[in-house]
């Protein structure tokens, strides 16, 4: 039997996809923001901390990075409420999961970035009398940011795509919306043909935004 592509059903339910995409972007943005805060704070703690701090940060990073994200999603959504006795919504649960996941990956990025800030430049900050916090805020952080920006694009796009896992706990993001249409119209091929470019184009937009930021932040090279 021949299969005839028919997109009519998709258009009828396209609202599911748009609202799903919007939620996917929101989930990614919030999680990336929280993840950056966790990642940077822990990177600073790791680079300046004692043995216990280093061990704790390393344990967090290793745990998160060696457990499948899907399992973490389940663990936080089903496991923590049943163990701790408090419940929260699927969306909040997923934001917590993805933030912790993002944080673990970003610790590594920021730590490598802080290490790559030339020691001489930090010495120059000391020499003009900047306090440790001032050196962090005005020298180490901005220099690090320019070093890690290219690596951040990859991480951010991965995290955006990882929002699709929220569909397994019924967070109505893009993949969930697509699944819903598929189940209600039996038009699986058409749904995925439409959904995949939505991820692709948004990924490109994230990349373009970061490239623009890079160009704005990193001064021109001397010819």
């Amino acid at each position, binding site marked *: 039997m021949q299969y005839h592509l028919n997109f009519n059903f998709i258009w009828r339910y396209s609202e599911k996809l748009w609202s799903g995409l919007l939620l996917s972007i929101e989930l990614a943005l919030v999680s990336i923001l929280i993840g950056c805060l966790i990642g940077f704070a822990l990177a600073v703690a790791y680079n300046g901390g004692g043995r216990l701090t280093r061990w704790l940060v390393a344990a967090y990073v290793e745990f998160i990075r060696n457990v499948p994200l899907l399992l973490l999603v389940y663990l936080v959504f089903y496991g923590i409420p049943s163990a701790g006795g408090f419940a929260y919504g699927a969306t909040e649960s997923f934001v917590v999961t993805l933030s912790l996941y993002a944080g673990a990956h970003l610790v590594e990025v920021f730590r490598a970035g802080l290490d790559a800030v030339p020691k*001489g430049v930090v*010495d120059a900050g000391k020499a003009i*009398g*900047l306090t*440790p916090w001032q050196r962090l805020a*005005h020298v180490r952080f901005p220099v690090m940011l320019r070093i890690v920006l290219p690596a951040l694009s990859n991480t951010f796009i991965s995290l955006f795509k990882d929002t699709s896992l929220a569909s397994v706990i019924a967070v109505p993001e893009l993949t969930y919306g697509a699944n819903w249409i598929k189940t209600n119209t039996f038009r699986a091929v058409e749904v995925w043909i439409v959904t995949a470019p939505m991820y692709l184009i948004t990924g490109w937009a994230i990349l373009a935004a970061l490239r623009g930021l890079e160009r704005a932040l990193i001064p021109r090279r001397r010819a």
Partner: protein
Amino acid sequence: MAEALVSIRNLKKSFGRTRVLDGVDIDVGKGEAVVLIGASGSGKTTLLRCVNALERYDDGSIRVDGVEVGFRGEGAERRPRGERELSAIRADIGMVFQLFNLFPHLNARENVMLGLQKVRGLTKAEARERADHWLAQVGLADRAENYPSELSGGQQQRVGIARAVAMEPKLLLLDEITSALDPELVGEVLAVVRRLAADGMTMIVVTHEMIFARDVGTRVVFMDGGVKVEEGAPRDLLVNPRSERLKAFLSRLEMH
């Protein structure tokens, strides 16, 4: 000698088991330019970095304007100073580095302004005015908006000097500031330093440029193996070295 601004006594410092400074005494009077010479590994750069606490010293003392740099308290009460105290002490001691070490994310003017605003507490307008004044002094009035990556080595180093002196330090430390420069760019940097010396800036200078040592130095200290071997007036010491070690060092330089 004039009233001593810097007095270094029995300074000792080891990296692991390697003793880099093995009991050094040096005094620097107000307005003096003391030049440290010696082979690589003689301890001169380490000594310089101890003076503004970029390195900690193990024993002995360094006093700048009467204040012990690395420690607080006396005798049994003596404790290493914390980072906050060190920051305050460093603010009054300028340093210029071999590899310039400009802040790569800031343009020339902002490089000079950062310390003025954050450490000296100047307003943005005041800091900008003072930064532009010093950039003009080092001949870079037209480069204020350029980033370090857009400047030649000589220009970067002059920004480095402006950044240090704009803080109006009591003491300026120069760490082989021309070693990383192409030969044709050395002159422009040394001219700036010569003018600062003439204006009475107190300096400790580590250099391999003997001509510079002779021109700018009020006194030359020759170090070898972590100790001071000889010191004296530049014209005397560099022309009539007494110790064999200094003779050997100077003859090695002449061969280049």
